């Protein structure tokens, strides 16, 4: 189901990068591929559908000069090939171009193609039939001097003398020939080549090339006795006589022999010339007749008998005049070479029919009298001309041939196709070019046109003259489509090729970016030599349309979560207005179904958990309520709610508070509620109650899966995949595939959310960087800097760009009025508004405008400078302006979004803000930025898995790395872990990692050490590391925080009162030590969420579900008889960890859910260890006697306060560090030069810790590799003349930027000065300077006052 129609020429969305448009081509539509003239059928139909008939006709005439003729007599192979045949019936393609031709003819101003510049070469065309005329038409357009020689007194060949005018009126043919005359083609009629002139004579007259298109005008003989009696008229001759205006009357009973269109023409012409009973004799059945079906049908309508399976054997005459015809009955035998069943005579079935005349119409052949001795052409065994199949060149190089003369009797459109190809050849021949090069010979039509769910639309019938009106005259039978019918018929086109090849874009593109050549672009193979490959092919959303149970394909109000995202998006099809797709009704009740295409082997093959669906469903529910109002009822049907990410649990809790309903149930049926579009949902509650509830809309939370083409890619690259078709990797090297040098990141590594993908992406970059370090900076180029324009002392010329931000701003603020208002402000030279000011094309335009209007100050009124200032500043630099000559004005986040119910006042506020920004920017001056060296050493704090992974990545890339660990040993919490989920012991791999770190000459390990002080800033940190009493100062450019986490010491479940009650890590120790007690266990109970997801600790510790299940399986492996229970709230085995959960259930581990309100109770009575809880499914209390209780304890942040203070880093309520951006900056801090990884960020398993360690290193390397960084320009500056040397600034600055000039300085000794490198531009010194000697560039006092003054101005 598509939400919105996308044209073939498109850009994916307004902010797309690159911003250029692309044209989607699926391939050549079958109509075009099949048409011998390869008319751009889909193109002219699309233009017709659009009402652009003239353009449609012009497009047709690019390939074919006879839309009117072929619109009447074509055998329309295009319609036989039409994809619509598979749906209902083909398009009336020929009726459509007939409509175009008739419209053009009726316009009084018929289209004549534009000729190219005149060429002097003369070309002779022999035969004025469709082939010759077409060849003449195209050569005339090329500019040649073309003469057509025709034996008959009339032009058109078979079009004129072969086809009766009730089918093809003369004026239609004449009008289309007139266009050829208008192109300057000369016609000589009544001239017989070979008799009146020879080819040799014409060569002497200067003709450079010849096209022979003399057709096949001689009737084939029946080859039976009596054929030469009077009363036997060859069909073609009969038609010719009638068409030349000679009245022929054959008598009442006329037998026409043959089943082709010529036979039909003869029999219907006989009827029209007064014969009472003309009829057809044909040796095969009706189904095998080569004539058009319409022709046969019209014959029948006119009362003409078709005597099929009948073959003439003898003509019987009386006095030399035909009296009767003897025929024999036939039957159909085995198929012949043509695939048709061969007719076989039935012995003894001869019979006679009395007739007045007989017309044989069984085919024609060519009279080759034109080929005189000087022609070197040769004929083949069938008496047709021998030519090259592609070029149509004969054995004589300057002679080309086509049409019936080459093919034997064939169709008009084949002749036209031949004339067109011959014209190309002749043009190349004359220019001396290769006749073959680059000619398209492969016209394989597109195959994979989606047809599912297409409604049947009947073909629009052709209106016909009534049989009784038409059969006595030669008036045209088919009356043609009227405009409405043509439009309706054109609308049926399925647009098989996507791009219709109407080439209107070629004409429209002023930049010349789209040409016929670009339309002809073919896939290209490029070979790249690279040092590494990173695979990030992503996922595809699961497609539920194949599964009846979800009724997705049938019910329009069942949509996927991806569609829901678009419906909620301001740039989506409804502009963010939440409505049902089916009837545009605003929904009141929406249900989400979780695990569609995930955790499900029955209905799909994806047994893994897609990891992200729970969170996005909760998010969509919350946003939907935000869009539609609080009374929108949102219900999420789920199995386990998996909100295991950082701050996810809080989000889930908040959603519950906001009234989102969470129903733990898998829905089994969706039913339509009458015609209301509403959907009734039947489900079973946890307590076994069957419920029915009606919703307006259902959102299927579709899972993530690897696309089939990605699986193919993996095969080609020889990469091993997991059972779920994700890239196989190991926990200690999660970004490495099975093939060295190829790395993986993102959802192909396993279903995952955005932050994890971003982490993995940086980790993969680090992994690639590790093997390529030797070649760093060898292939990169430094971007050219645009020289800065000097605007000093110029009067301000301000440009104001007001953003609509789709509807984000314009939905509330009246953007045009803000724009117009801005234009009235002082010094504003230019004001405009943009749909998306941040889009690449707007940026390009902005740079152009700056140059064109010589703007020297720019104001962008849009979103927030915190996200977009840098982008716009780059545009200023691209236009040669200093980037500080810029001001942003926040009319989205701080205006339209927060005042949506107050559009007038919001607009007023926007105007005020623009006025203030204009006032400020006028006073802006160009600012310089200072360069700063980046110390090339790194400091990693924390020697656990993440810290070691980070150190290894840095060391391998050649950077000196200090690894500081508080303990005496490296390894962190991983030293307590037993095994990874793949069953491999942690210890061995941990030891290997420690050995790698210790063996790396670039890594200096500081054990038993802590940080005691940090000075400096990005690029130049000085950190004091304390080892006992010993202190060492380390200089480093970057720091990585990898301080890890600690396990909770539980206070519940009687922990500490019995040695059989242990924590997960204590159980790991037992498993590691092969504790024999494990094998003796009668029962073991795991209690999940011990300390996690509690009101005082509202987060999920992420690893415990997998850990407990893994341990449970380890117990089961050693002691299969043990009864193992896992008491849980939600099982959160995300991604392919789900397999472990499945395995555990299969192996008999018993899972019992409990709720926060009814936690399990542990009791120790007389040495008996018992756990009691209520089974929610049975609704009954359960009592488990056990020998072991393992508590899945929460993971806690250690006391990070000191470190947070040292580096000025934020901590969240749970004590974990707060990264720069939850999605896009998971390893960065707002503080430059400091990075984050491992459990210091959030609880995580080994693979994710390794990944984030490497990712943090990658982020750090991006800084180290630059070697220099630029500081900001908005720094404080002292005017020494005013400085009173009081020293307040020196003492107050948190960054130690101000200092006193030395007493020995020649100028201003002892006065204050500010180091611009150290200055952060906070302005503290400025405000505290009692002499007013310090100013802050970019936030100068006069600028702030200008804003204040502007505030007061009446607008």
């Amino acid at each position, binding site marked *: 189901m598509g939400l919105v129609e996308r044209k073939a020429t498109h850009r994916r969305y307004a902010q797309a990068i690159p911003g250029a448009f692309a044209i989607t081509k699926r391939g050549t539509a079958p109509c075009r591929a099949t048409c011998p003239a390869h008319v751009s059928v889909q193109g002219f139909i699309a233009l017709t559908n659009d009402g652009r008939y003239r353009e449609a006709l012009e497009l047709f005439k690019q390939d074919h000069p006879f839309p009117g003729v072929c619109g009447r007599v074509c055998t329309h192979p295009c319609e036989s090939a039409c994809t619509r045949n598979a749906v209902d019936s083909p398009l009336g393609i020929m009726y459509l171009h007939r409509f175009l031709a008739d419209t053009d003819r009726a316009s009084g101003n018929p289209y004549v193609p534009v000729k190219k510049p005149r060429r002097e070469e003369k070309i002779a065309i022999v035969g004025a039939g469709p082939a010759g005329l077409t060849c003449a038409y195209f050569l005339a357009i090329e500019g040649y001097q073309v003469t057509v020689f025709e034996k008959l007194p009339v032009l058109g060949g078979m079009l004129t003398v072969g086809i009766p005018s009730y089918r093809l009126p003369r004026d239609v043919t004449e009008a289309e020939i007139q266009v050829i005359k208008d192109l300057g083609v000369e016609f000589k009629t009544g001239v017989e080549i070979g008799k009146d002139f020879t080819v040799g004579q014409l060569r002497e007259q200067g003709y450079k090339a010849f096209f022979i298109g003399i057709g096949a005008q001689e009737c084939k003989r029946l080859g039976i006795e009596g054929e030469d009696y009077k009363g036997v008229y060859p069909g073609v001759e009969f038609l010719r006589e009638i068409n030349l205006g000679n009245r022929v009357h054959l008598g009442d009973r006329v037998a026409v022999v043959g089943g082709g269109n010529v036979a039909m023409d003869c029999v219907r012409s006989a009827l029209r010339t007064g014969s009472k009973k003309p009829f057809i004799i044909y040796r095969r059945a009706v189904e095998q007749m080569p004539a058009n079906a319409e022709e046969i049908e019209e014959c029948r309508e006119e009362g003409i008998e078709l005597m099929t399976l009948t073959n003439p054997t003898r003509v019987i005459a009386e006095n030399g005049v035909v009296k009767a015809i003897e025929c024999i009955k036939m039957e159909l035998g085995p198929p012949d070479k043509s695939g048709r069943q061969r007719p076989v005579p039935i012995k003894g079935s001869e019979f006679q029919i009395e007739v007045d005349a007989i017309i044989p119409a069984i085919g024609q052949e060519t009279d080759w009298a034109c080929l005189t001795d000087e022609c070197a052409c040769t004929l083949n065994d069938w008496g047709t001309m021998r030519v090259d199949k592609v070029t149509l060149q004969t054995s004589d190089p300057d002679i080309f041939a086509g049409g019936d003369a080459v093919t034997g009797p064939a169709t008009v459109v084949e002749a036209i196709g031949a004339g067109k190809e011959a014209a190309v050849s002749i043009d190349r021949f004359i220019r001396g070019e290769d006749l073959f090069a680059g000619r398209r010979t492969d016209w394989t039509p597109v195959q994979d046109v989606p047809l599912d769910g297409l409604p049947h639309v009947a073909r629009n019938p052709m209106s016909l003259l009534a049989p009784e009106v038409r059969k006595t005259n030669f008036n045209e039978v088919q009356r043609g489509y009227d405009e409405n019918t043509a439009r309706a018929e054109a609308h049926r086109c399925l647009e098989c090729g996507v791009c219709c090849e109407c080439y209107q874009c070629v004409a429209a593109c002023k930049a010349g970016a789209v040409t016929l050549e670009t339309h002809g672009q073919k896939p290209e193979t490029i070979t790249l030599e690279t040092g590494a490959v990173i695979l990030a092919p992503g996922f595809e959303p699961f497609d539920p349309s194949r599964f009846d149970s979800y009724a997705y394909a049938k019910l329009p109000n069942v949509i996927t979560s991806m569609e829901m995202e678009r419906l909620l998006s301001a740039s989506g099809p409804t502009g963010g207005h939440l409505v049902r797709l089916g009837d545009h009704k605003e929904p009141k009740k929406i249900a989400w179904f979780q695990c569609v295409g995930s955790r499900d082997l029955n209905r799909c093959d994806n047994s893994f958990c897609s990891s992200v669906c729970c969170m996005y469903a909760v998010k969509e529910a919350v946003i939907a309520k935000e869009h539609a109002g609080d009374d929108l009822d949102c219900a999420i049907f789920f199995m386990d709610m998996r909100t295991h990410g950082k701050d996810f649990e809080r989000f889930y809790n908040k959603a519950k508070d906001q009234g989102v309903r969470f129903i733990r149930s898998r829905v089994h049926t969706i039913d339509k509620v009458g015609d209301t579009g509403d959907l009734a949902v039947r489900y079973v509650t946890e307590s076994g109650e069957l419920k029915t509830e009606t919703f307006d809309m259902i959102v299927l939370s579709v899972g993530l899966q690897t696309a089939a083409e990605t699986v193919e890619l993996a095969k080609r690259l020889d990469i091993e995949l997991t059972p779920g078709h994700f890239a196989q990797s190991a926990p200690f090297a999660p970004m490495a595939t099975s093939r060295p040098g190829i790395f993986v990141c993102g959802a192909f590594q396993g279903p995952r959310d955005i932050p994890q993908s971003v982490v993995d992406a940086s980790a993969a970059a680090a992994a690639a960087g590790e093997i390529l370090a030797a070649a760093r900076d060898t292939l990169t180029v430094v971007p050219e800097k645009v020289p800065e324009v000097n605007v000093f002392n110029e009067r301000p010329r301000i440009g104001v760009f007001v953003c609509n931000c789709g509807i984000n701003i314009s939905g509330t603020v009246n953007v045009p009025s803000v724009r117009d208002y801005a234009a009235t402000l002082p010094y504003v030279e230019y004001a405009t508004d943009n749909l998306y000011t941040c889009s690449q094309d707007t940026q390009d335009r902005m740079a152009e405008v700056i140059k064109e209007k010589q703007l020297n100050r720019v104001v962008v009124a849009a979103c927030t400078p915190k996200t977009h200032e840098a982008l716009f500043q780059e545009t200023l630099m691209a236009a040669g302006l200093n980037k500080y000559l810029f001001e942003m004005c926040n009319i989205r986040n*701080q205006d339209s*979004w*927060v*005042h949506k119910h*107050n559009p007038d*006042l919001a607009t007023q506020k926007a105007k005020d803000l623009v006025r203030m920004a204009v006032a400020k920017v006028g006073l802006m001056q160009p600012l310089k930025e200072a360069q700063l060296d980046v110390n090339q050493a790194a400091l990693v704090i924390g020697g656990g898995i993440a810290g070691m992974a980070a150190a290894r990545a840095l060391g391998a890339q050649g950077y000196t790395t200090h690894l500081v660990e508080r303990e005496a040993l490296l390894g962190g919490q991983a030293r307590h872990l037993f095994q990874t989920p793949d069953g491999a012991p942690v210890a061995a791999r941990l030891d290997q990692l420690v050995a790698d770190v210790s063996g790396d000459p670039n890594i200096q390990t500081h054990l038993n050490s802590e940080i005691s002080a940090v000075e400096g800033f990005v690029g130049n940190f000085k950190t004091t590391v304390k080892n006992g009493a010993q202190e060492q100062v380390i200089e480093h450019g970057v720091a990585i925080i990898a301080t890890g986490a600690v396990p909770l010491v539980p206070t519940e479940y009687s922990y500490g009162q019995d040695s059989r009650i242990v924590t997960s890590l204590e159980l790991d120790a037992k498993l590691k030590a092969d504790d024999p007690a494990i094998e003796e266990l009668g029962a073991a109970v795991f209690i999940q969420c011990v300390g996690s997801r509690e009101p005082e600790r509202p987060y999920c510790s992420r690893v415990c579900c997998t850990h407990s299940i893994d341990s449970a399986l380890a117990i089961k492996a050693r002691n299969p008889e043990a009864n193992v229970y896992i008491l849980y709230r939600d099982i959160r085995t995300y991604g392919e960890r789900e397999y472990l959960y499945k395995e555990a259930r299969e192996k008999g581990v018993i899972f019992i859910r409990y709720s926060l309100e009814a936690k399990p109770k542990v009791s120790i009575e007389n040495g008996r260890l018992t756990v009691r809880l209520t089974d929610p499914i049975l609704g009954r209390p359960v009592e488990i006697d056990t020998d072991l209780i393992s508590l899945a304890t929460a993971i806690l942040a250690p006391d990070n306060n000191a470190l947070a203070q040292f580096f000025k880093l934020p901590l969240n309520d749970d004590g974990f560090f707060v990264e720069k951006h939850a999605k896009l900056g998971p390893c960065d801090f707002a503080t430059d030069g400091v990075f984050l990884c491992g459990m210091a960020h959030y609880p995580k398993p080994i693979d994710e810790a390794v990944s984030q360690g490497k990712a943090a290193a990658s982020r750090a390397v991006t800084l180290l590799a630059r070697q220099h960084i630029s500081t900001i320009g908005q720094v404080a500056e002292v005017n020494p003349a005013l400085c009173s040397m009081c020293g307040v600034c020196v003492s107050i600055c948190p960054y130690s930027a101000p200092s006193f000039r030395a007493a020995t300085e020649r100028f201003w000794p002892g006065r204050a000065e500010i180091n611009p490198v150290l200055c952060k531009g906070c302005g*503290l010194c400025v405000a505290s300077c009692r002499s007013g000697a310090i100013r802050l560039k970019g936030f100068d006092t006069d600028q*702030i*006052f200008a804003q204040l003054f502007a505030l*007061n101005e009446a607008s």
Partner: protein
Amino acid sequence: MSQWEPKIVAFLCNWCSYGAADLAGVSRMEYPPNIRVIRIPCTGRMSPKFVLGALREGADGVWVSG
């Protein structure tokens, strides 16, 4: 005569309160449109002169946040 509405000038620190005001927008919170924000690099930049200036220019209230 319409109801009197105060005019408030807010000096917001770029790093915290200004970002918070952005977040209020992202979260689609609503508040009265009486506030005009002046972004300053840090409340350290704040000078009493600005408060006085704002009041002199017609502000009924000045809000400094950082």
